[in-house]
């Protein structure tokens, strides 16, 4: 991996009172290299979106975070909202799932671009702003003839293209895209993913792509991190992880993905836990087909594997930390069929 453009170290994001905090992101570390496309996957409620927002300092009221988000030699955790706003845009961009709710219906597309550029690059001339906007929109497939139109005059896919262009016009070093294609049809989804896959070449921008769809990760990402119950339980190159998932959760996620090549339906029993009172030990143990006794007792220790991979699972040791008898299969009650997400 090239030099990281962003380093996340032991980031925690929690909601609620200090007494019973909901730890939506719990001790997460992650590097994103320059121009790299990193996929962040997991079921709903695993903390993917919270991590994405935590990185950008865009947490909702009442959420608190500690740890480090290192960007350009600075720790973004603890920066004032004003300082964060200055970084957001020119350095760190964000694309949301629902493009319509992020565009102002009363402003023309041209106004959206002008406001953004004026705020972050006040030195630009009108002509320069216009040229940059049209160019960026054009690369996203929006013709200059539609520059003066209003958001409602565009289809869903075009709005998402506009949102991406609006983030890219500032040439950010990193773009966080949270389920950017979830509300789109499959062909339009493919068009948008092709655009995102070319970010590196066209804009030199790194991408953190948050999605629940492993097919998208396989096709678009260089590296992937799998999140479960607030933790990154596995990370590695997409090629390695798909070829040989190290964590049973990753493997189960892969097996339950329905694609044209799927030959048999599979699902993961149960649902991600409530983070107010997560299971003891490994948080996945109640749903894990390979759970051992130690998994219910002790939190797994992160293990570094070959090729820059890491995993948090007792199956990968360290053996010296497993108490005697801990590797025996875990006996437990059956999970009700409907106890699911």
């Amino acid at each position, binding site marked *: 991996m090239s030099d990281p453009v962003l380093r996340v170290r032991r980031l925690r994001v929690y909601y609620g009172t200090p007494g019973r905090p909901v730890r939506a992101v719990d001790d997460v570390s992650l590097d994103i290299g320059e121009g790299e496309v990193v996929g962040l996957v997991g079921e709903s409620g695993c903390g993917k979106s919270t991590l994405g927002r935590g990185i950008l300092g865009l947490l909702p009221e009442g959420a608190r975070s500690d740890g480090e988000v290192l960007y350009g030699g600075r720790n973004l955790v603890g920066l004032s909202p004003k300082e964060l706003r200055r970084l957001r845009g020119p350095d760190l961009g964000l694309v949301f799932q629902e493009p319509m709710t992020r565009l102002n219906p009363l402003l023309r597309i041209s106004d959206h671009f002008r406001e953004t550029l004026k705020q972050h690059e006040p030195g630009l001339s009108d002509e320069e702003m216009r040229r940059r906007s049209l160019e960026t929109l*054009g690369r996203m497939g929006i013709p200059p003839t539609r520059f003066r139109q209003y958001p409602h005059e565009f289809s869903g896919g075009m709005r998402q293209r506009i949102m991406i262009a609006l983030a890219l016009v500032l040439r950010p070093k990193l773009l966080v895209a949270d389920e950017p294609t979830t509300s789109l049809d*499959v*062909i339009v989804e493919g068009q948008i993913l*092709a655009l995102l896959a070319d970010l590196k070449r066209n804009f030199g921008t790194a991408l953190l792509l948050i999605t629940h769809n492993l097919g998208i990760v*396989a096709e678009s990402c260089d590296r992937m991190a799998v999140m479960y119950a607030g933790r990154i339980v596995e990370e590695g190159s997409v090629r390695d992880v798909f070829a040989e998932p190290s964590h049973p959760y990753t493997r189960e996620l892969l097996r339950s993905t329905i*694609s044209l*090549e799927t030959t048999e339906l*599979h699902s993961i029993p149960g649902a991600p836990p409530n983070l107010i009172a997560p299971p003891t030990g490994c948080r996945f143990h109640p749903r894990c087909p390979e759970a051992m006794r130690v998994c219910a007792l002790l939190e797994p220790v992160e293990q570094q594997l070959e090729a820059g991979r890491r995993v948090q699972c007792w199956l990968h040791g360290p053996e010296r930390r497993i108490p005697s008898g801990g590797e025996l299969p875990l006996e437990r009650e059956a999970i009700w*069929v409907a106890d699911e*997400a």
Partner: protein
Amino acid sequence: MRPETVAPVSDPRADGAPLVSIRDLKTYYAIRGSFASRLVGHEAGVVHAVDGVSLDIRRGEVLGLVGESGSGKTTLGRTLLGLVRATGGSVEFEGREISRLPEREFRSLRRRMQVVFQDPHASLNPAMTIAQAIGHPLQIHGLEHDRDGLRLRVAEVLERVGLAPAEAYLDKYPGDLSGGQKQRAVIARALILDPVLLVADEPVSMLDMSVRAKILELMLALKRDFDLTYLYITHDLATARFFCDRIAIMYLGRIVEIGPAAAIYDDPKHPYTRALLRAIPEPDPQRAVPRDLPRGEVPDAARPPLGCHFHPRCPRAFEPCGWESRDLRELLESRWALAAGQAGVEEEQALVGDLGALDRSSAEVRLPASRGRSADEMAALLDRIRDEAPDEPFWRGVRRIEAVDGRLELDFHEPEAPLLAPSGEVEVECHLYRGEPSDGS
């Protein structure tokens, strides 16, 4: 819980006659356009949501109705259920014409055809307990008044959909349930009336991947246990593959391909079907994001393209497919998008002038030269564009380009609307297959 009296074996209609038979169905919506266009008095439009669809749903089968948003698939389902009035054509259910039934008569019919919608969160009243919500249809149809009897029947159906033990769910509110559990409750509510037909409109697309398989398997098990017939409406050909016996692909109000699921997946014929299949992301890192997907999105059904509705996006479109003035606008705009910000673009825009003049459903373009420009310059621009990308399907549709009396004249080939015709095991509505010998007929 299924009374013996429903669909007896001696039913004369059970002899292989389809459960549902739809013929030339049309469902149009009148629209008034945008607020602004109403203000300036623009004429009202008509959305041809379903525009001449014929299909059968056979007893006991799962028919997949697949298409993108705007294809009309949901409207077709709603018309079948009598939730939307048909504009024309016929819908026969169990041999009886139902498309023009008064609402009162339709209501009793709805016991036999039930629906599961996409959003389980919106399908359940948050103020009703699960017992109330699922028992409600029985009360509405006057089938069960006794409180204990009602609770018993609800408990029974809850367990059938996997919400067991039922006591743990009966008095819960929808807000206490997960998405998958809610969808099970919605399915239970549909089943409690003992329907023969279940219309399932994207029943799993709002659910997590890890849950989808469970709901699909549940629906397949219920189909066996209750002798159900399904119309499965979806945009997702991957889940449909597991679920459907036959597939109908819909695009802008028309069925463009229909046939046995295996044939559709193994040998898709319509370029649209092929595109839908190619666009599905595969969990295989060897595969890259496909770059050759159709451009653009499903166009406005109020003004569908001429000829084959798919032609503006089709990589294989040729002479008869319905080329028209609007396609020239599209061609120019995508060219200008690619080169946006470069010097020549504004020059070209000035030369062509008002693109609004091209915004017509017509196989002829008559474009007066902009002020200070000549029609010859415009014709030369088009020649240049053609030379740069001669393989662009658009040019196959062009019959003549000429500068005449100070205006650009461009004629396309005569548009021909394709018709659904047999091709091998399937039927396909595409000019590419019209020359093929049909088997049988």
